[in-house]
């Protein structure tokens, strides 16, 4: 069996195992059998609590992880840069900032949160793209401008919070704990997340094409800018929804596509579904660890991600010099 198939099988086995572990572990401990029985009978109070508290965060973790990873894959294809990631170039913080501002001033519009997040994410991406475009995308300039845009939006968000926004909804956008999630959040995440993921998979050929130089693609009659535009919209949609519902995560969109390329190759037909699955697994693992490792204290999943993600990325980069397109 080849590496691709094994990688998929391993991830597909680990996801249900982690879901089972995550559902049955924590302040309420029950066995898997009790859980399944309780779900069907509907009479077990503990199971009812688990259903309302743990299930939403499990589903949201899975979808947020998938969305952020695929968003990373798409941004890397659009910008032809292995370091492009929604967290690093400011898409997530743009989405977060606009969401906080809108929810604070217009709390009644809470259900439009995904729209605000999308507007913020798109704004940040537009700024990065415009400032770093100079008859072509220079990878280094793009990352530096992305870091600057990100810093501005993070700063603005903190300023806004410090100046008296005490709304719980607002705070949850930047701190990214996955606790206190409801089935309403799940509905938003699953609906928009699925749309984005399915479209990303449909347009995988565009991501593949962008691996060639622009002038080569033009000579093949391919509308490069249209492909870039479509993939950018999808990437921003995925990252913004994940940020609006689950909060800010960095590294997922960087780490997972990178692992994906070394395990399953650069063909997006395989890379996009693999990244979605692996990203889902990673965030769920991070959230479950954060919740159980120092119980009853909870460590936000984003912090776990940063702590394990950073060193792991360095390890990966040192191990292989295989970087996007080169």
């Amino acid at each position, binding site marked *: 069996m080849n590496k691709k198939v094994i990688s998929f099988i391993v991830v597909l086995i680990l996801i249900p195992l982690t879901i089972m572990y995550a559902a049955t572990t924590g302040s309420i401990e029950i066995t898997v059998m009790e859980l399944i029985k309780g779900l069907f009978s509907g009479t077990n109070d503990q199971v009812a609590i688990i259903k309302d508290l743990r299930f939403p965060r499990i589903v949201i973790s899975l979808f947020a992880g998938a969305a952020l990873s695929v968003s990373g894959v798409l941004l890397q294809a659009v910008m032809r840069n292995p370091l492009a990631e929604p967290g690093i170039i400011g898409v997530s913080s743009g989405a977060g900032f606009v969401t906080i501002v809108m929810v604070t001033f217009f709390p009644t519009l809470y259900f439009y949160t995904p729209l605000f997040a999308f507007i913020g994410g798109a704004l940040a991406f537009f700024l990065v793209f415009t400032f770093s475009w100079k*008859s072509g995308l220079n990878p280094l300039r793009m990352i530096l401008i992305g870091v600057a845009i990100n810093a501005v939006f993070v700063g603005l968000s903190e300023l806004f919070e410090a100046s008296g926004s005490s709304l719980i909804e607002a705070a949850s956008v930047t701190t990214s704990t996955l606790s206190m999630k409801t089935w309403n959040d799940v509905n938003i995440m699953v609906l928009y997340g699925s749309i984005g993921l399915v479209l990303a998979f449909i347009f995988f*050929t*565009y991501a593949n*094409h962008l*691996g*060639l*130089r622009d*002038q*080569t693609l*033009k*000579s*093949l*009659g*391919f*509308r490069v800018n249209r492909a870039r535009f479509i993939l950018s919209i999808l990437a921003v949609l995925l990252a913004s929804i994940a940020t609006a519902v689950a909060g800010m995560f960095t590294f997922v969109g960087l780490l997972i596509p990178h692992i994906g390329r070394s395990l399953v*190759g*650069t*063909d997006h037909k395989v890379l996009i579904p693999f990244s979605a699955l692996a990203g889902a697994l990673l965030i769920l693992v991070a959230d479950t660890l954060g919740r159980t490792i120092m119980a009853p204290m909870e460590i936000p999943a984003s912090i776990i991600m940063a702590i394990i993600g950073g060193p792991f990325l360095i390890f990966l980069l040192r191990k292989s010099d*295989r970087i*996007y*397109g*080169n």
Partner: protein
Amino acid sequence: MEIKDISFAYQDHVMRLHHINGTIKKGEVTTIIGPNGCGKSTLLSVLTNNNAPKEGQVILDGKVLNAYKPKELARTLGVVYQKNEAPSDMTVEKLTQYGRLPHRSTFSPQSDKDEEMVKWALECTGLYERRHMAIDTLSGGQQQRVWIAMALAQDTPFLFLDEPTSNLDIYYQYEVLELVKQLSDEHGLTIVMVLHDINQAIQYSDSILALKDGSVVAQGNPKEIVTTELIKDVYGVRVVVKEDAEAGKYIVPLGI
């Protein structure tokens, strides 16, 4: 293809091409020569509609170049650039299949014609046996041929090559040139290329277009137009022009 009074400047507004006129005859191999920075590649980019001219027109099959739809143009005119990039694990065959893009819609599967053309392109370039190899495992010469294969799979009557022999050692240079000759002779392709080596240009071209500082100095059959004076004027190098039965016409540089 008719080149009518083309002038061109990049965003910096410095004129790179001045009132270029010329004709590229069907079925011929035309070579653009000239010193570094004279506008060879720029002219090629205008002729392939990668850059739009500031003034003048390029007319291809009776139609102005920028009136073509992107895919329509890509079915008429293929380009092999000097610089190329592709994901390192892409196979030779996959990359060659990109040449079929202008013949397909985004989501349609490969047709028999597509497969046939890809096979032909791989055979022409001698890569059929290596079709399942990743491109980064190939030598420079082989990689160059993959990009040519891609343009061949495009199945266009016009083929443009920007310095197809650069960075290749002499064997592979001639391999590429022989391929060009074969495509022209056997398949009737109209070929326009940029070359650095004047002797190769004389040997393999039906027509030469000599550029200097963005202007055409001479155009015509190499046997007629290549003279000591022309080379002195274009490159600033003293040469003698020789001719013998075996080698045909050739130049020998003497100094500057």
